[in-house]
């Protein structure tokens, strides 16, 4: 018991947190990220590594199901909490971390009946409808004549691949709970090896999606922060967490009340570092090229459209974010826009067009490249109020 209490205290000093972010909760997310730093918590990428699951915003029914699946994969000791009001984020996080130690955890552990536990003992008892995919929603049904396999999983089907071979096709669901991923976005990808052959994207709605996007409006600092938020996500996906963190600090400064000149000088440091990085260019050059014609055809506006005139690859897009962020901070308007992602055309929001473009360009790439391409468009799910399914085939 003494040892237990001692371990509890040590372990609670660095809790690992998994964020489940719903669309429309950007303000709550930013407050949560801030609160996590205050308690010394670290954001993690997988449920196996998480102690705390933080649901940000009100999830809709489908999202709530996915969050439930993810929750069942936390090893424990585990705590689940919800942040809706940005002002209450700090208190919620502190309470969650406090809940990690103490007798409650023992009681909860005894009550748990997880599928992964029974799966190991009775391999054939798994119910196919309940098979947890890694991120919750693995839709294993609807595979035609697939044969049930141990653990209730299905066997992969085969199809011709790009080199004329016959390879297994695996349906992988990315999101809605995934680190540095647009809130509530679900991408169902058919992959062969790790090459994406087909993409199907939709946004799993929050409880109510009527609120305007957090990033919209005429405030230049907020628009700059939107670009930096996108950039930080891209850098995290590219695999440069230290740099992503630095960009987030500049983003928070842009959202704060400090002098603009200070934000601009910090941005200039990051800007120089990124543009000089040859290895970053190795990762992003020539990837996901959006031509000006394609941009017009797909109604892409905003920075992504401007980047299309400048090469149109992922590198051009992150450079455009940097340029635009500095321009709006300086009081210049880089182009007509309603929000930071453009103005859209007709009923179609700017983000809907971005998601469409990203999905088209993801096909034929491997998973890593496909995620980078998506992150370089960074559609804002807050803008995509209605879930519009779109399907792109190779």
């Amino acid at each position, binding site marked *: 018991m003494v040892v237990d209490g001692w371990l509890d205290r040590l372990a609670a000093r660095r809790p690992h947190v998994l964020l489940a972010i719903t669309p429309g909760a950007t303000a709550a997310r930013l407050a949560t990220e801030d609160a996590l730093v205050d308690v010394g918590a670290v954001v993690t990428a997988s449920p196996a590594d998480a102690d705390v699951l933080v649901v940000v915003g009100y999830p809709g029914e489908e999202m709530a199901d996915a969050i439930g699946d993810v929750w069942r994969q936390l090893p424990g000791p585990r705590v689940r909490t919800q942040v809706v009001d940005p002002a209450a984020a700090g208190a919620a996080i502190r309470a969650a971390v406090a809940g990690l130690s103490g007798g409650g955890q023992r009681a909860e552990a005894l009550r748990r009946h997880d*599928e*992964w536990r029974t799966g190991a003992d009775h391999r054939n008892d798994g119910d196919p409808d309940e098979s947890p995919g890694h991120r919750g929603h693995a839709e294993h049904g609807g595979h035609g004549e697939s044969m049930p396999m141990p653990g209730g999983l299905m066997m992969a089907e085969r199809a011709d691949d790009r080199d004329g071979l016959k390879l297994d096709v695996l349906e*992988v669901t990315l999101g809605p709970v995934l680190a540095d991923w647009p809130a509530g976005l679900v991408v169902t990808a058919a992959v062969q090896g790790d090459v994406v052959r087909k993409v199907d994207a939709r946004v799993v709605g929050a409880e109510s999606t009527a609120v305007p996007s957090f990033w919209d409006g005429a405030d230049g600092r907020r628009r700059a922060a939107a670009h930096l938020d996108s950039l930080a996500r891209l850098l995290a996906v590219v695999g440069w967490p230290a740099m992503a963190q630095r960009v987030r600090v500049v983003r928070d400064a842009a959202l704060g009340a400090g002098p603009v000149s200070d934000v601009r000088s910090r941005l200039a440091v990051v800007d120089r570092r990124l543009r000089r*990085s040859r290895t970053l260019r190795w990762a992003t050059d020539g990837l996901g090229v959006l031509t000006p014609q394609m941009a017009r055809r797909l109604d892409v506006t905003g920075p992504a459209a401007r980047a299309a005139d400048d090469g149109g690859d992922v590198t051009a897009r992150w450079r455009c974010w940097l340029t635009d962020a500095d321009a709006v901070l300086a009081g210049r308007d880089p182009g007509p826009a309603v929000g930071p992602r453009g103005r859209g055309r007709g009923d179609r929001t700017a983000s809907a067009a971005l998601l469409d473009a990203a999905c088209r360009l993801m096909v034929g790439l*491997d998973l890593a490249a496909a*995620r980078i391409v998506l992150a370089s468009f960074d559609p804002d799910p807050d803008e995509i109020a209605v879930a519009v399914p779109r399907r792109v085939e190779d």
Partner: protein
Amino acid sequence: MSYPVWTVPVAAVVLMSFTATAAVLDAVLDSARRGGGWRERVGRPVWEAARLLRQRRRTTVAPDALLWRLGTSGPLVVALLMAVVIPLGGRAVTDPVVGVVWFNAFDVALWLLWWCAGWGANSVYGLVGGYRFVAQALAYELPLMFALTAPAVAAGSLRLSEVVAAQDRVWFVVWAPVAFLVFLLAVTGFSVWGPLSYPAGWDVAAGVLAEPSGVDRLLLLTGRYALLAAGAGMATALFLGGGAGPLLPGWLWSGLKILAVLAVLVAMRRRLPILRADRVMKRAWLVLLPLTLVQLLVVSVLTYGGS
């Protein structure tokens, strides 16, 4: 020269001290925590370890349990096996005739082990991570082998004590700087660290690290730091003259050099973005590999040209 058998646990303790140092260094270099003082950071490996000791050991649905356990515990075992041939102050636990090959053989074993760590969990992200390691290993392994050959050729021996002894006048890092740099890069490669942590990429929810939890995860993460430590030890023996140095005793010189190399390896993590295998493969084969071959030629001419 070798120590008696009872020094095996001593070598393990030494390796684990360097491993812990690597973990502390990583925490100290982390810029993410604002306002965190030194004590906040230095203690971090302790809290992380406590956390994982307390965490339940989760499995997945229908895992390949045997291969998974092999994969999660393997890297630490490999690091320990590498450590027995690494000389500290001129002496190692054992000094086989083929010391360099011993090291190389175990770094190749990591191909299987990291792949198993990814495959065993029966999860998409782990699987992708495991195969990413194989792709990455295809890029770094041949340059690594030629980088290992350079000091062996220069010394005319595969025995590590003789390689160290051959550096009494000039350290091999002077003759073979390219081999030294390639070796360091390859160490981060087989440790899945920093710019070569593509198999544990954030974009696939940490890949090979996506599913292990509790004590499995603790073993795997410890193994990763231990591999870095073993790599730093080997770099010191092969390129930095082992325990050679003025005034201080040999074991202290070895220790200091290993710490310096380890610090460089750990710091690499924050300097560069991940080098994706699909993007660097071409550079590895068309630039790095010829460079190491030229390096080998230069070393051979310098060594045997005069005689």
